């Protein structure tokens, strides 16, 4: 999983059937200290995350599909599976 911040959403009328009813959010991957890392990606929401939330994103299809649609086998490669309350780093390695 990766840490990310929700920065927006995507509206798409014409899409794969399995995305119907889902919320497609734009997330910015971040380091544990909150600094942006790399380009944004899209993830299906499964936890009612909102813009500004720090979230946990799973980037694996089976998990992403089951968490966001309740069934495996959808063409979904990323899903938001948790909203982060706090990140504690004990020591720099």
């Amino acid at each position, binding site marked *: 999983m990766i840490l990310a911040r929700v920065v927006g959403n995507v509206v798409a009328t014409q899409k794969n059937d399995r995305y119907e009813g889902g919320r*497609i959010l734009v997330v910015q991957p971040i380091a544990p200290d909150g600094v942006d890392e790399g*380009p944004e990606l899209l993830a299906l929401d499964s936890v009612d995350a909102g813009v500004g939330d720090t979230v946990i994103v799973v980037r694996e*299809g089976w998990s992403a599909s089951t968490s966001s649609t309740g069934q495996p086998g959808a063409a979904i490669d990323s899903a938001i599976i948790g909203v982060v309350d706090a990140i504690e780093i004990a020591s720099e390695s």
Partner: protein
Amino acid sequence: MQLARVIGTVVSTVKSDLLEARKLLVIQPLDAKLEKTGKPIVAIDSVGAGDGEVIFWCRGKEASFPFEPLDVPTDCTIVGIVDSVNRV
């Protein structure tokens, strides 16, 4: 999934039987500001996307799921056409 723009078409005569009649498109990955990020890649279309459109695509094994029960060999499939991106 990631945003991208359709920038071209690939024509291939000799190919896997399972790719027969599939539309192969060249897409340029985009960030949420719709600016280019990374290199263009080849994607199979599953939603009727066309030249110049902003789309989103799915990577990996999941990319072949829209074509089930066929096992279409792809690791990159266009799964939606973007109406708008709202970035706060």
